[in-house]
């Protein structure tokens, strides 16, 4: 609207009623049209003319402010301009009038001159024709009348005869009238002029201003009528001096002269006032948003422009502010922001989700890949390892041997790692299947300790305690339980430098909800002869257990919680069967585990610290596997540990008790029974003491049988050892009294704790078994086959007994020395697998070759205790191979066709004697034919070829065992 008015600057009248500093840009836009009085732009607009409070004194003060002054100056200028304009207009009017007057004067002069001329001519004519005066005068006057409009107009009115006296008279009268009229007009003009002037004077600035103000007021009203705006002025004390409030909540009287605090209360007031004060202090206008929450109008948000008002002297005398309600906008804005945030979150979530999905997929793939890779690696690796093992049995110098040792141990480590990974992925994928077999927990514990003792390279005491109430036979996955125990024990040994490592096996009584047991029944079943008092003893024991358990529980609450449902499941599944909870503690006096590492302990690839990993090696998988296995079996694995004092790993497992003497597929069990091992014979306690460097593990066992005769409660075996300088017994079979005394004192001295606990627990039938741990013995398992074989004859007796005692069918679990090395020559895969399995079950180490030629090569490189030879084979049959072997044995030389590639081996007598080949030359290796009883494989032929005997195929357990018993020198 401004622009059209700009074009007419004259109309610019009330231009700056608007505050000047409302914004320079807008300043010119607020213009007002000049209205003539009869032309009121607001006449159609209805105003609620309310009595408006005007504080005139304040107005004066405000007028004295800079702004007020500038306003006044503007008004003054405007007024001066207007007055000058009016003066100019008047001057113009005056000029016009004086011009008219001049014209009139001129006319008059002309008329008068004409008159005189006519008079003169009249007189002249009169002189000539004095009678015709009047007529002449008229006639003479006629042409001049043409120029005079006034007289011409009137001409017709003269009805007298031209140039007559009357005519002239008439004419004079008329002119007189015209003159009069003219004078009249002049007078009226003057009057008008005067009036105008008077009028001008009466149009005072005040009147005009008030008009202007009124119009501005109207305009403002028009504009602001429906604007959600509050405009206010507050003085230096922030008291309201002026307010325009769209919201008619408050009357002016309620506001004027009051402060915000007096009017309002609630949120935002303080903030706004502090900002106002700040504006006054700094003198800088500001625009802010204030969120109010007052009882009067609720929660509202105002955007407020606050500007300072300065006095002429530059002092701040107050503030003006304009506030606009933007509550809805704020709400909308917040909603928008909220929506945006939510959208962002949603997007973030989606990306995160897809990423984690991707990661999960990747992980699954990686896991699968790892498992596959591990499997793929395992086969060739075991190939490498077995070849290396075979290599170790060949003639090597010392350095080669050392290198090979490193190779084998590294290979074993890799194999272990791969097996661990496979185990883990098996458990995780749910592919791990648990076996259920009957086994004897005592023997498991014993054998784990034995194995650990065999490979022990430190001065440690290994001990085992088995509670009376532990059933003789339980059903479970013995392999996995062994794995767990072995793992925990090897961990314990690894992290213990001095002191002891041990296993406690007990039955837990109602340790957890949902695993109730009728232990009375168990007792009766397991120990028919045991007096009922054991129950009481157990109850003495159980508080300690409980304490420990609660400790465990609190430390590993999650574990226990996880464990409980499994227990319940277990119970549900086997409600009909008797279930016993076996609690196994594996404790050590080692370096312990820092508290902060405990939670990480069972995580995969986690070790207590990187330091430990460096120092002790290991994959960090062992405990994770143990835990998973235990949980898979429905048990729990927990740990308590104190740094530098030791750790105790505890697992609690549910095991079924066999309902009756079922057929057991464990032949060793049969052996044990055959050996007269009744339940009461099974030891409740074992002790493996360090420093006894002998190979008399075996002799020790043999003594068991002897000393059993004495019925001693504490049986002690002092293995005689020639190598052991501490024990000067040479025959190993000292009198038992001696033994007993020595052992008791020994155990008291060296291991008070274990003895005390033994006493406490009253393991009446407990015994201390001192066995020798010898580091070298492990290496013999692999590297020193020759020497072991060589000495095998000396160990004949013990070997057999241990063999029979061994719970473990697998050769690796059995003590090393009792193992006979057997060569199996067979080409049929099915036959191989069957025969191999049988021989392994009997505890023998076997090499397998597929034909006669390979058999000869094997014999050239290794010494075997026995050869099982198929007759009908490709390349070279069994008969021919036997003939070659026999020929070598008698002559010491191989037939040219089967000469070994490396002659040196046998050529050098020193080496050959080293390899005990010298011995074997003179010795006939038993060769047993495996015949199919067909026409082409007659027994006679076999015997004729030099074989010692034959067994008919298919081989079965009985005939192979009989044969081995007969032909193996050790049996």
């Amino acid at each position, binding site marked *: 609207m401004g622009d059209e008015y700009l074009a007419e600057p004259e109309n610019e009248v009330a231009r700056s009623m608007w505050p000047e500093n409302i914004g320079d840009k807008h300043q010119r836009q607020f213009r007002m049209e000049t209205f003539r009085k009869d032309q009121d732009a607001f006449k159609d607009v209805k105003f609620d003319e309310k009595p408006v409070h005007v504080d005139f004194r304040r107005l004066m003060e405000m007028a004295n402010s800079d702004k007020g002054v500038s306003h006044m100056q503007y008004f003054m200028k405007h007024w001066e301009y207007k007055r000058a304009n009016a003066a100019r207009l008047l001057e113009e009017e005056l000029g016009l009038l004086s011009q008219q007057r001049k014209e009139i004067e001129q006319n008059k002069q002309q008329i008068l001159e004409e008159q005189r001329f006519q008079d003169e001519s009249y007189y002249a004519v009169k002189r000539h024709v004095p009678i015709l005066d009047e007529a002449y005068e008229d006639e003479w006057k006629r042409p001049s009348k043409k120029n005079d409009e006034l007289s011409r107009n009137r001409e017709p009115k003269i009805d007298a005869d031209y140039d007559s006296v009357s005519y002239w008279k008439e004419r004079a009268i008329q002119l007189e009238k015209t003159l009069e009229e003219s004078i009249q007009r002049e007078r009226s003009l003057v009057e008008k002029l005067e009036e105008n002037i008077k009028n001008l004077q009466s149009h005072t600035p005040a009147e005009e201003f008030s008009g202007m103000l009124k119009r501005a007021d109207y305009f403002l009203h028009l504009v602001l009528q429906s604007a959600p705006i509050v405009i206010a002025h507050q003085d230096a004390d922030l008291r309201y001096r002026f307010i325009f409030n769209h919201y008619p909540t408050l009357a002016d009287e309620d506001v004027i002269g009051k402060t915000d605090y007096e009017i309002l209360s609630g949120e935002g007031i303080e903030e706004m006032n502090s900002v106002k004060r700040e504006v006054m202090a700094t003198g800088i206008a500001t625009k802010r948003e204030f969120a109010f929450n007052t009882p009067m109008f609720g929660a509202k948000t105002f955007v407020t422009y606050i500007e300072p008002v300065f006095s002429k002297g530059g002092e701040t005398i107050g503030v003006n502010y304009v506030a606009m309600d933007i509550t809805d906008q704020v709400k909308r804005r917040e909603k928008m922001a909220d929506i945006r945030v939510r959208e962002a979150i949603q997007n973030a979530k989606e990306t995160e989700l897809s990423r984690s999905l991707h990661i999960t997929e990747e992980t699954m793939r990686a896991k699968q890949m790892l498992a596959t890779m591990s499997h793929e690696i395992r086969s060739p690796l075991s190939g490498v390892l077995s070849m290396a093992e075979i290599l170790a049995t060949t003639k090597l110098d010392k350095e080669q041997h050392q290198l090979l040792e490193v190779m084998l141990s590294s290979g074993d480590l890799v194999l272990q790692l791969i097996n661990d990974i496979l185990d883990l992925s098996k458990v995780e994928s749910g592919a791990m299947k648990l076996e*259920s077999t009957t086994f004897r927990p005592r023997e498991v514990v014993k054998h784990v300790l034995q194995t650990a003792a065999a490979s022990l390279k430190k001065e440690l005491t290994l001990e085992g305690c088995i509670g009376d109430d532990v059933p003789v036979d339980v059903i479970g*996955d013995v392999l996995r339980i062994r794995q767990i125990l072995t793992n925990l024990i090897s961990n314990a040994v690894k992290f213990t430098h001095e002191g002891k490592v041990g296993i406690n096996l007990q039955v837990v009584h109602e340790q957890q909800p949902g695993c109730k047991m009728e232990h009375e029944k168990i007792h009766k079943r397991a120990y028919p002869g045991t007096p009922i008092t054991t129950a009481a003893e157990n109850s003495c024991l159980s508080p300690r257990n409980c304490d420990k358990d609660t400790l465990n529980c609190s430390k590993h609450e999650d574990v226990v919680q996880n464990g409980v449902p499994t227990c319940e499941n277990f119970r549900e599944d086997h409600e009909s069967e008797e279930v016993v909870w076996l609690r196994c503690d594996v404790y050590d006096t080692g370096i312990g585990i820092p508290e902060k590492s405990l939670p990480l302990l069972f995580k995969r690839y986690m070790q207590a610290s990187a330091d430990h990993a460096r120092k002790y090696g290991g994959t960090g998988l062992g405990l994770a596997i143990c835990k998973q296995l235990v949980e898979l079996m429905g048990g729990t694995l927990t740990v308590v540990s104190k740094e530098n004092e030791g750790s105790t790993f505890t697992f609690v497992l549910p095991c079924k008790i066999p309902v009756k003497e079922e057929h057991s597929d464990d*032949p060793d069990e049969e052996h044990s029974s055959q050996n007269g091992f009744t339940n009461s014979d099974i030891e409740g306690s074992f002790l493996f003491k360090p420093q006894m460097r002998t190979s008399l593990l075996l002799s020790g066992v043999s003594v068991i049988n002897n000393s059993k005769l004495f019925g001693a409660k504490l049986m002690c075996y002092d293995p005689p050892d020639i190598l052991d300088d501490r024990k000067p017994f040479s025959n190993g079979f000292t009198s038992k009294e001696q033994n007993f005394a020595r052992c008791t004192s020994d155990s008291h001295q060296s291991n008070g704790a274990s003895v005390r606990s033994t006493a406490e627990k009253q393991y009446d039938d407990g015994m201390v078994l001192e066995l020798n741990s010898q580091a070298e013995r492990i290496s013999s398992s692999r590297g020193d086959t020759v020497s072991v074989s060589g000495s095998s004859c000396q160990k004949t007796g013990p070997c057999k007994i241990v063999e029979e005692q061994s719970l473990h069918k697998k050769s690796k679990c059995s003590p090393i020395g009792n193992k006979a090395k057997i060569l199996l020559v067979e080409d049929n895969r099915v036959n191989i*697998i*069957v025969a191999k*399995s049988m021989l392994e*079950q009997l505890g023998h180490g076997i090499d397998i070759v597929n034909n006669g030629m390979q058999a000869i090569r094997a014999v050239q490189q290794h010494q075997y205790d026995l050869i099982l030879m198929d007759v009908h084979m*490709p390349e070279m049959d069994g008969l021919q191979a036997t003939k070659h072997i026999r020929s070598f044995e008698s002559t010491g030389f191989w037939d040219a066709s089967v000469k070994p590639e490396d002659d040196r081996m046998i050529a050098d007598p020193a080496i050959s004697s080293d390899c005990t080949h010298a011995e074997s030359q003179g010795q006939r290796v038993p060769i047993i034919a495996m015949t199919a009883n067909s026409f082409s494989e007659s027994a006679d032929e076999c015997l004729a070829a030099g074989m010692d005997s034959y067994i008919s195929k298919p081989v*079965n*357990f009985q005939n192979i065992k009989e044969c081995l018993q007969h032909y193996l020198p050790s049996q």
Partner: protein
Amino acid sequence: MAAANQLTALLNNMYATGLLDEQFQQLQMLQDSSSPDFVSEVVTLFCQDGERIIGELAKLLEKPSVDFDRVDAFVHQLKGSSASVGAQKVKNTCIQFREFCQSRSKDGCLKTLDSVRTEFYDLRGKFQTMLQLERQLQGFYPK
């Protein structure tokens, strides 16, 4: 425990019909906690070998001039395997087969090959059923 009953019934049937002999019990005895899948391994191996050998035999006997020594070697193999797992019927037929080989009778060989094949596949089917039942039993037994 329906699977267990089924398994027992199946084995009894196999013994009764002479498909298996007591050698199979040897295998079962050998299966223990240290080699839990022993029977399955042996049986699977036997089935693979048998199939391969029968294929080879068929190929050899198709030829116009039969290499009876090679045929004999294969039959010997099959006989050994079947004896080891206690596959009585297959084993006995293999013995017959070898006699025909010795007498260089192509017709006899072809005839016995047919009966070996029939018997072998009959046995294999039963073995497969057996292994399946065993797997089922293992599947829910330990937990």
